Structure formats: C-alpha cells, structure tokens
C-alpha cells in the first residue's frame, strides 16, 4: 500500500520512451513484430514473456545495441535513429553483470564518469553516493573477482546509476541469484527505483518478479505485445488464455457468448451455468466462443452446511500439500477438465480426503472472460 502511494510520486504523465511500430527481423524470422509502447517517466516498467518472445531484443534496441528493421524509438522526445549506444541517455544492467575483471569496485563504478572529466573530488563523491545507494559502502577497493553474485549485481547497478541516466535498462538482473536473495533484491530494486525516481525498464521471464516490482507490465509472446497493464489488471483481467496461463495458474472453462454489451459479457458455460463477466479492455471477439477463467485461489471450499450465493459442486480427485496451502483437483460434472483449487491450510484443507464430495464457492467478480 505504501509503495503504491510512493509510486504515484515518482511517476508522471510524460512519455519517456516511445516505441512506434518497431519490427526486428532476422531473415524471415521476426524477433519483434510491429510493437508499439509508451513508457512513462519515473515508471517501473517490465517486459515479461517466455524466452524468445522478443523482450531482450526490444531492450537492446532501446539501449542501442540492436537496430529496428523498421519503426522508431524515441527516448525523452529524442528520436534514437542513428544514435550509437554510447551517446544514448540510457544505461544497462547486464544479465551477466559484465563487471570489468581488471578493475576494482570503485574503478568499475567510476568507469563511465572518466569521460565526463569531473574533478577528483566530485568524481569520488558521486562514486561514494552510488555505492551507498546499493549498500556497498566500504567495498570500493575490492577486486571484481572477489565479489559474490549479489555484490556483483549491486556493482552493476551502481555503475549504471552513477551516470544518472534518464532510463535504466535491466536485463534479467535477478536470474543468476538464488531464490532468497532474489526476493530480497526485488524489494530493494523497487525501493531504489522509488528513491532515485529514474525510469526503470526490466526484462524478465519470472511473472512474480514482474508482479512484485512493476508499475506496469507488457506481456509479450512471439515478438508481439499481448497486453500492457498494471500488475493487478494483468493478473485479474488477462486478455487471453496465453497471458492468463503465463501469469500463474488459471482454470479455463469453455463458454458461449450469449450477450455482449459495453463493459460485460453474458456467457453460457457447462459447469458454472449462465454467468455475467467483466469484459477486458482489450477484448477482441472471435466468433461466438470465448473462455471463462477463474484463478485457483478464488475458489473457496465450503465447509459443512455453509452456503454461498454462487457455488459449484464436485468430487476431489487429487490433493497436493505445499506447506501453507493445499492444492486440490476437483472434478465438476459437465466440465471437461477438473478445476484446480488452492486453499490455505488454516481450516484443514490438507485433511480433505481424496474422493470426497466438495462444494466450492466463487465470487462472480473473480470470473474473467477471455478471447479464445
């Protein structure tokens, strides 16, 4: 909650990066296919997608390491065509961190400052400031080869931030860290971005990373941008099955469109009957068929004689224990695929016997209509 409030402070309505109809082809293969995107100033923006979806290609084109086959990229209103990487107002944190092995931490961070010909005091001050931002104060004299993975990542961050770029580009910066460190760095990166107020563009294939850190996310598949929205909207109102599936689990139910009006759709389904569901903003109708989706954690187990206004009933066919939660697979008459249900273990969901009849409650607001 606190973070959202802060985030409104760093974000403005100005467009920092404008990507217009950008295509990048390698022969007949299109790594990026007619992508358009506007990233706002001060925003933490994520490009999310499986490997080979074109997210890294897009990032490298913003940095200037790759050129669009067609289309244009502008940073802070300046067209970037023909401007080499070394003269762009962007800096990058590389996936491998690319720490110069022949230099120590301080020299690595000061690398880009040398060209600015600052006086020794000013340079030292900026290096110290950048090291403090990433909590590396005191490690300035360490050799690059003596650093841990997390420290190398901080050096890479400091080295880019010290340049005070308009845009900081991060290419899968957390993928080389172990789980615990990765989660800690997610929080820290977000905090850092809020503190410096620089536009961050993050490339990641980890949906939780994108959800946890970003103001907005662009989900990409096969060189195309599928959806651009806030983490919450992406998660709750995915535009299609692909997006829904990539961001966590989702139960898909075949549906028939009965009625379509402004903001909602009336759908006929086998298991859930006739339901009304919100229409996603980018919904494109494809004939009369659609898909109804519901997240496994939005289905609640109804105990004993409890009732709910909206419920389905079936039979437990599988149970998987995950510590704080239990994952149930429930067969519903009429549905071709059983439903996944995630229930916290507070009330004993881990004791539900396989084969037992079960009733599940759902909130109609949790139902999402998707293009097929």
């Amino acid at each position, binding site marked *: 909650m606190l973070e959202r409030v802060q985030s409104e402070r760093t974000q403005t309505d100005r467009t920092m990066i404008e990507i217009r109809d950008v295509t990048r082809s390698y022969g007949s293969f299109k790594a990026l296919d007619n992508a358009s995107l506007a990233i706002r100033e001060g925003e933490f923006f994520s490009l999310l997608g499986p490997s080979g979806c074109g997210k890294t290609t897009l990032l490298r084109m913003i940095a200037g*390491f790759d050129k669009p086959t067609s289309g244009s990229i502008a940073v802070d209103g300046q067209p970037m065509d023909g401007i080499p*990487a*070394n003269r762009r107002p962007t*800096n*990058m944190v590389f996936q*491998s961190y690319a720490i*110069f092995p*022949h230099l120590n931490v301080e020299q690595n961070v000061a690398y880009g400052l040398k*060209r600015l010909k600052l006086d020794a005091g000013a340079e030292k001050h900026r290096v110290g400031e950048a090291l403090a931002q990433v909590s590396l104060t005191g490690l300035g004299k360490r050799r690059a080869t003596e650093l841990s993975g997390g420290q190398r990542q901080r050096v890479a961050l400091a080295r880019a931030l010290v340049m005070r770029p308009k845009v900081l580009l991060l290419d899968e910066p957390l993928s080389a860290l172990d789980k615990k460190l990765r989660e800690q760095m997610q929080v820290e990166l977000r905090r850092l971005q809020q503190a410096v107020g620089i536009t961050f563009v993050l490339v990641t294939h980890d949906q939780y990373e994108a959800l946890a850190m970003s103001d907005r996310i662009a989900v990409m598949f096969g060189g195309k941008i599928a959806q651009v929205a806030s983490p919450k909207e992406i998660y709750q109102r995915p535009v299609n099955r692909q997006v829904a599936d990539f961001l966590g689990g989702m139960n898909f139910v075949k549906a028939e469109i009965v009625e379509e009006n402004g903001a909602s759709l009336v759908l006929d389904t086998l298991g859930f009957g006739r339901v009304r569901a919100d229409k996603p903003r980018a919904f494109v109708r494809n004939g009369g068929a659609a898909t109804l989706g519901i997240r496994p954690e939005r289905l609640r187990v109804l105990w004993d004689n409890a009732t709910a206004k909206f419920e389905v009933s079936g039979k437990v066919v599988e149970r998987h224990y995950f510590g704080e939660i239990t994952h149930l697979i429930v067969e519903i008459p009429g549905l071709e695929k059983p439903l996944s249900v995630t229930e916290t273990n507070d009330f004993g969901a881990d004791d539900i016997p396989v084969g037992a009849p079960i009733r599940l409650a759902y909130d109609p607001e949790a139902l999402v209509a998707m293009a097929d």
Partner: protein
Amino acid sequence: MTVAAEGSPPLRMAGSRRSPLLQSEAVQGFALISPTFVYALILLVLPILVVIAHSFWTQNYLTIDHTFTLENYRIALTEPIYRDLLWRSLYISLTVSLLTVALAYPVAYFISFHGGRHKSLWLFLITIPFWTSYLLRVMSWKVILGYNGVLNSGLMGLGIIDEPSTALLYNSTAVIITLTHAWATFAILPIFVSLEKVDRTLVEAATDLGDGPLRSFLRVTLPLSAPGAISAALIVMIPTVGDYVTPKLVGGKDGVMIANAIQAQFGKASNWPLGAALSVTTMIIVSLMAGATVLVFRGLQRLAR
C-alpha cells in the same frame, strides 16, 4: 609408507589392493609427467649443465683444461666484438618481438572479432607458410630483398629509385624483416586466444557507459588481452636472440648475431669453453630481459586504468 597405510580408512584398503602411495594425487601427477620429465632432464638439463661446466674450463689445443677459471666470462663481457654482437642480438630480438606483436595484434583482433563463421579458415590460412621449410622462406626473402630482387625491380619500375638499393639485403634490417615474418604466426595465435577469452558483454558495457570504439578498445579489450600480447612478445623474443640461420643467410656482415659467434666457437674456432661462456651469458641476459618485459607490460597495464 606404513604411516600412510595406517592413516587411510580401512574400508578403502579392503576395496582396493593398490598401495595407498599410488593413490595419492601428487604421486599420480608425477607419474603422469615422468616421461616428459625424464626426457627434459636428459636432453635439456644435462646439456645445459655440460655447457655451464665448460664455461669455467679452458681449451688447451685439443684437450680441455679442467681448472676453474672466469677468464671466458671476462672475454665474453669485455671483448668489444662479443659485446657488440650481444647488443645487436638483443636489439634485433627486441625490435622483432615488438614489431611482430604490433603487426600480429590487428590480425588476431580481426579474426577474433570479425572472423564470424570463418575463424578456423582464417587460422588455417595463417599456418600455410609452415608447409614449407624455414630455409625456403628465408630464401624467398632473399629473392624479394636482393640486388635484382622483386622489391628493387618494382621500385625501379615505378621510377622511385634509379638504381637497385643495397640497403635492403645483408644487414640487420633484412634480419628484422625476415624474422618478423617468420614469427608472425607464433604471435597471432596467443593473442587470438586471449582475445577470444574477452567477454563481448564487457565491450558492450563499456559502450553503454559512454565509450566509443577506440576508447572501449583501449580501456577494456587491450588490457584484458595483454597477457596474450606479453606471451606473444616473449615467445618471439627468446628464440630470436639465439637465431643463427637467418643472420647467416640474409644478415651479411652487418647482421651477424651472437649465435653466429657461439656457433663459430663450437665449430671452426674450436674453443668450446668460450662458446659455452657466451651461451651462458646470453641465456642470463635473455632471462633478465624477459623478466623486464613482463614488468614493463604490467606497469603499462596499471597506467592504462
């Protein structure tokens, strides 16, 4: 042996009937290198010991006087002829090694950074001169540099010179040109290998931080490939000091090097002890020079940061 056996766990002793001594990594290592080691001992260390011993003796017509003397070293270090030859050898080898590295670096850089899919083809092409004998390659330089050679006729044909130049062949320049060409491959390969090891992302990172192509080369690629350049310089420098075929064939009287003098002492002059003293002196000076080269390069590397 007994101690080692007691120290090792009994389970392992039961599983393997081999002596624990053979299982120690150090012993296995020595066993692996022993053929090479024995070979080097017999053909490298022993001859050097013989040479060192000779350098303290005296030639007495057909026999060797085995009394210890430093007279040979006095001659080797103070006679102007040997001093001049030694200086010239060092000058030639140093020039050749620097020139070779300077010329080989761009070639290696091109293959490594721009060779694309044809890297191995380029490397293969570079080794082609080795298909012919070294003598033939030296001889071909004679054809190029000679009085009526390719270079002279070419320059005359273009009207740049009126009569053939004698400055091309039979002097130390001819030796330098020939040796530089002959050793090029030995310099290209180590430099190529060290350039291949330079992570290309580091060059991108330097570019990202504002460096143009030249600056990123000077600040990242060059320092990171310096070890290859140093070893290339040493690989060329050390053997060229002692080269005697090249000066003999293209050096004339101005291109004679210390090895020619050493050869003469062991051959025609038949003064093995003096030849030995000259050899040992050269060896020591080359070692010192190699050490100095490494230090100078390290200093330059530190300055470049």
